[in-house]
Structures are given as structure tokens and as C-alpha cells.
């Protein structure tokens, strides 16, 4: 099955979206440029609101990661995951994914290089990365933008959602690509 057309379609999404909005503005005689400037000013305010949240959270993550605690946790957990049918090679990815998009992407790239992009590990890694998001980043940016400090059950929902996404990626990937 060739999906080249889908990749090509991806390139059309943003331009088409923009063209529809600007076309509608022209049709409705909206003063588009001043409307743009008015809305765009909020971008900077939002940036200033988010900044402290991002710096605080990413500094904590950097300390945790550089200390080696995450690596230790991974090697501690790996033997328990093998009997469950969870490839231990993918454990660092599953543990890093909610915390750091860049770090989990680095793991994916590393696994591709080591096992090949068309290997089972390579494919499962790509599916896991593609079907989940960096929960703590989303939490920091979205809640930070309105100053939420009492996030209630949001972290639990996000992390359980992540775990479900990782598990779904494993099952669906195996189902699609294993002989």
C-alpha cells in the first residue's frame, strides 16, 4: 500500500487552512490585517505567561534526567516488562515520552539506527512516538497559559492516557506488522 499521496496531502493542510480563512475574510469584507494585528498581540502576552512555567518544569526535568535516575529506573523495570511481552528496548521510550518530546525523539532515532526503520522495534517505536504526546509539556503550556496551579486529576488522566497510547501502539503495531 503506497501512502505517498497522504504525505503529499500533508503539505497542503496548512496552506489550504490559511487560504480558506483569508478567502472568507475577503468575502465577508473583514478588515483582515487589523484583525490579525489585534489577535497577534495576544501571542506575546501568552509567551510571557508560559515562560516561567516552562523554565521551572524543564529545569526540574533536566536535573532528574542528568542525574541518571531515569536510566536506573529503566534498567530496574526492564526485567519486569519482558514477561509481559513488552520489548525492553522500548522501555526507555515509554518512560521518557510523557516528560520530554526531544529526548523520546532521540530514543526513536537511536532505535531506528540500531535496528533499522523497517524492523519490528523500529516500527513500534515510530508508532509509539506518533500516537502519544508529551503530557508534561502540554500540561505546562496549556495550564500555564491561564495560571492553573491546582490541576486536580489532570496529571492522572494524562499519564493513564499515555500508558493506554503506548499499549495501543504496541498491540496495533504487532497486529499490523508481525507475521
Amino acid at each position, binding site marked *: 500500500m503506497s501512502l505517498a499521496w497522504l504525505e503529499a496531502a500533508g503539505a497542503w493542510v496548512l496552506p489550504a487552512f490559511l487560504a480558506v480563512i483569508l478567502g472568507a475574510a475577503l468575502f465577508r469584507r473583514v478588515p483582515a490585517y487589523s484583525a490579525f494585528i489585534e489577535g497577534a498581540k495576544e501571542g506575546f502576552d501568552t509567551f510571557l505567561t508560559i515562560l516561567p512555567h516552562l523554565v521551572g518544569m524543564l529545569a526540574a526535568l533536566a536535573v*532528574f534526567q542528568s*542525574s541518571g535516575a531515569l536510566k536506573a529506573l529503566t534498567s530496574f523495570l526492564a526485567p519486569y516488562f519482558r514477561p509481559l511481552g513488552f520489548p525492553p528496548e522500548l522501555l526507555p521510550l515509554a518512560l521518557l515520552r510523557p516528560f520530554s518530546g526531544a529526548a523520546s525523539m532521540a530514543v526513536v532515532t537511536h532505535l531506528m539506527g540500531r535496528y533499522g526503520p523497517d524492523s519490528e522495534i523500529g516500527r513500534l517505536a515510530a508508532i509509539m512516538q506518533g500516537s502519544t504526546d508529551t503530557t508534561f509539556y502540554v500540561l505546562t503550556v496549556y495550564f500555564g497559559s491561564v495560571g492553573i496551579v491546582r490541576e486536580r486529576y489532570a496529571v492522572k488522566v494524562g499519564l493513564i492516557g499515555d500508558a493506554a497510547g503506548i499499549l495501543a501502539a504496541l498491540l496495533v503495531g504487532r497486529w499490523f506488522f508481525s507475521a
Partner: protein
Amino acid sequence: MIHTVWIGLFLVGIVYAALTGNIAHVSTALFEGAQEGLNVAFSLLGILTLWMGILNVARKAGLLDALARLLRPLIRLLFPDVPRGHAAEGYLLANIAANLLGMGNAATPFGIKAMQELDKLNPEKGRATRPMITLLALNTASVSLFPTTVIGIRAAAGAAQPADILPAVVLASFLGSAVAVLVDRFYQWREGP
């Protein structure tokens, strides 16, 4: 919980580094982390400003209202606490659509606008409301139809057909999101408004 997670990351990191003779890394990591926070915020700044401007054009042209009218049943289902016709509806749908279309970073400004509108309905500032958490759950689970970054990495690594994982990603991300929404519903029921 965010307080505990935040303090925990620092303390576990510092104590573990101290025990393993890694303590020198901690100071470096602090500066690198702070710098990364600034870099991430800066990399968002352009896209935030651009898309918040364009969203305002879309709103004034009546497109967000049209989108909200068209897909109101979806909003009622996912966000029953948002009053009918509230401005948050259009932004929520724009955010969901942008995620579905794989617009990546462009989905973030839409989500932030939706969050800011939802905050206008928030009786207790600083405390997350139910629709806010649902919006977060949808975005952390990331329903995605175009996982462009991962496909790019596969292409760079020399995959025979880089995009052949796409149906699996769509299905897996849909399943993950469905679970996230169900878990969200469970906590809504248990913890109340």
C-alpha cells in the same frame, strides 16, 4: 500533584546524583534546563503570535461560529459544561481539527485560546475546571492523522515506505484518546465539578 511532581523531580535527581558521584552534572543541568525552557517558549512565540492573529481573522469572518454550529454535537458530547454558543466552542473545535490534520505546533495556539476562553467560565481562578482537563486529555493523547515528524525520521533512516505506519498510528492514537476521554469521564464523575 504538580507540586509533588516538581519537587520530586528535583529532589530525586539531586539525591541520586549525590549518591552516584554525579553531583557536578546537577548545576550544568539546571542551567541547561532553564535555557531549554526559554528556547521552547521562544520557538512557540512566532507560531503563537502568527496563529493567534490568524484565528482572530477567522473569528471575525464568522468561521469559528460556523464551525461550532456545524460540530456542536461533538462539543456537547466532549464538553457538556461549556454553555451553548460560548466563544470557547469555536476554539475547541479549531484545536481538535488542527490536531486531526496534524498541524503540529499550530494546534497549540488554538488550544491556548480555548483554555483562555474556558478560564472566563472558571469561578475559581488557578483551579482547573472539568472542561479544561478534558481539553488537556485530548491534547496529551494526541489524536493525529498526519504524524509528519515520525514519518520524516523514518524517511531519513532509509525506510522502504516511510508512511506505511500511518494507519497503525491513527488507530493507536484513536484508541489512546478514547481511553483518555473515558478516564477523564470517570474522574469527572468521581470528583464532581
